[in-house]
């Protein structure tokens, strides 16, 4: 159905449509966006599933991501190798979770992983400090940073272990009505 295209097989497109929130047209459009980052690396024929990874520098230079303070963490969280080098699957997955159709729980899970800088499945004080510094261009004093992080842990830490677990984070997100519209990148 629709236009003939030779990039993916019908089964591949079906799998993409079933596993992401994108339609066929959007998937093809995103493929071209991916390819535009490095036309010499990305083949036009994905039917035999080539193993192509784009380095983080190219991903981070996309106009949708280049000014985002968390672009490195986003790329690291969604990439297979954890370094930010993304395959097409990772690329589609990333923008699918960040699209407006993804549900709150899924977004909360990935937001948690993004803010968890040291990948220990908890958002501890150092993670919060790093987040705050990224968001305020390092212009707050150390005292202020410490006070804000302590306040955040006070407010959101429900099991009183001094750091935020995924449940604490999700509990807080449920009460943040704007999360769905702010954790959203348009592509």
């Amino acid at each position: 159905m629709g236009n003939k295209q030779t990039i993916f097989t019908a089964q591949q497109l079906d799998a993409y449509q079933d596993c992401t929130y994108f339609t066929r047209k959007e998937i093809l459009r995103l493929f071209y966006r991916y390819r535009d980052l490095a036309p010499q690396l990305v083949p036009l024929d994905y039917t035999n599933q080539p193993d192509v990874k784009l380095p983080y520098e190219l991903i981070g230079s996309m106009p949708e991501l280049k000014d985002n303070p968390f672009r490195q963490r986003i790329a690291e969280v969604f990439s297979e190798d954890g370094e930010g080098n993304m395959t097409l699957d990772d690329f589609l997955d990333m923008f699918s979770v960040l699209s407006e159709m993804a549900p709150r729980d899924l977004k909360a899970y990935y937001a948690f992983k993004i803010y968890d800088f040291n990948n220990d499945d908890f958002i501890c004080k150092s993670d919060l400090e790093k987040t705050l510094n990224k968001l305020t261009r390092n212009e707050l004093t150390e005292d202020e940073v410490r006070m804000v992080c302590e306040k955040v842990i006070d407010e959101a830490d429900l099991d009183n272990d001094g750091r935020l677990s995924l449940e604490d984070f999700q509990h807080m997100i449920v009460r943040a009505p704007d999360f769905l519209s702010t954790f959203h990148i348009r592509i």
Partner: protein
Amino acid sequence: MVFVTCKDTVTGRACCVVLCTTEEQNLVKELVGLSTRDRIRAIRGLSMSFKEKKHIRLVLSHYVSLIIKQYNTNNQVLIQWSCFKLFSQSFRRCGYSIKSARQTLKLWQSIMKEIGGRFGTSVLSYFVFLKWLLMFNIFSFLVNFGFITIPLLVYDPSPNIPPNVSFTGLEMLTGAGYFTYTIMYYGGYSNETLVGLVKYDMKLAYFFTIAVYMVLCGIALIFSMASSFKKNYVLADPTSNSAWQLLSSWDFSITNERAVRQRKNNLRVQIQESLSDKAQRQLLTLSEKLKHLGVYLGFWLLSTSLVVGCGVSIYYLYAANWSLLQEAETLLVPFVVSLMNLVVPLLYSLFNKFEHYSSHRRQIYALVVRNILLKMSILAVLCYYWMNVVAKKFSCWESVVGQALYRLVIVDFLFLMLGSFFGEFLSNVIGTRLIPRLGVPEFDVARNVLELIYAQSLAWIGIYFSPLLPAIQILKLFILFYLKKVSLTQNCQPPRRTARAAQMQTIFIALLFFPFFVGSLSIVAYTAWRLTPSEQCGPFRGLNSTFSVVGVWMDDLHEIPGSQWVIWIYENIIKSEIFYFLMTLIIIDTYIAIENKPFMNCG
């Protein structure tokens, strides 16, 4: 470990799919029991990497077919199952391609992305709302034009205009004169049954088109409100302010470097303010609280008296100045109405600066409530005048009301353009050159959205009296989009405070529905039920009320055999009060059901 032997559908090779962990096994067992649609939704919502999701999907499809194979050794059933699977797969592909096709019609996609990237989600919500209203009007125009106007044009293409009336340019503004006798207004439509390829009863067509359109609008609004409410309206926890600010307030969709820098600055200022705020909040003494209360009450009294003053003055202006002959003078009332709609909200914004609110959100709510009171009372006064005085005074009164609405819509548009100029351009000039302390203005989303809602309710009231009014509204909204976009990018800066955009969106839809749509619907319903249609013109001439058209049709149907079921429906359902009671119950039940639909868990 569980081994499942199957064939890889992509490469055709036989492969061994291994379910390693019990978690995965449990997940697959859980997903197998769901319907296909729910299964796909569950797979999409899994918090795993893409590779794992594809793996689960593959395993699921093979597991499902394995279960079926084990369960049915009967070949017949197996063939039926494969046929069913193929059918459902192609049905799903068809659904996806329809969704894709709908996206080609997406208007203004790139402009909205640019606005969202520079100004954030809260400002973008205004433009999203405008586009949504545009869709309502396009649908209305197509329906009205297709079912009411085209049959008339086909049957009788030339309007019967009296000989001494000719087209002058002034009609575009006043809607009177030449236009009075055309299909633009109610009066231009005939009440006959047009005999052509089929017998087309104009009365029934007019009545049912408008009734069905209003009902569909209402349903669409209720559903949007319910889904928006479910998604966005969460009772915000006031104690988790810092956590919210740090972890979920950053707008990821901002892509402009300067905007990002500004946001970071604003966030820093907000954090510093909130750190010092806590110390200051305890310092409010009783006398200060009383002073604030006094100031609130004073300004509320002032706003209410302004509203009452506006209403009364419009009524007297109308009552004193109604003259059909002097066409230019008829523009006076729309002019005054739009002037009030422009000036008084600006006054309210000014009042806001002198009042102290404990939170930014309360400030916006107070502003919104005052603006709504103003617009509703203006509309109420106008409708009261039309229903009670105009309906009894003129021979073809529906066309007269239609013209009044046309003028209101046009003049409102001109004033919206002026409002852009005063609200944004002048504020920019004042803020940058004359009083630098004020700074570059921000885009006032609440005020602009209320203006849109007011314009839309004018269009909704006007559908009955002027079926082609939606065409004017479409043009108006289209031009307004580009106007506001240019004004925004040239004159405004991104909002300093991250307002709770999602909640505001829900509130706007609720406002659109509750006072304004319900009000317009009641005005149209009152006209159809209680007021006598005019004798000389229009599709309902000679009848006691518009609604009696249905009664007459029912009487006619008695003679046609085979249509007893329609008469039965009319007698037993539409005419009985139980029907409306049941409808209300159904609506409330659907609302509650949508609210309580369980979320899919992840992780």
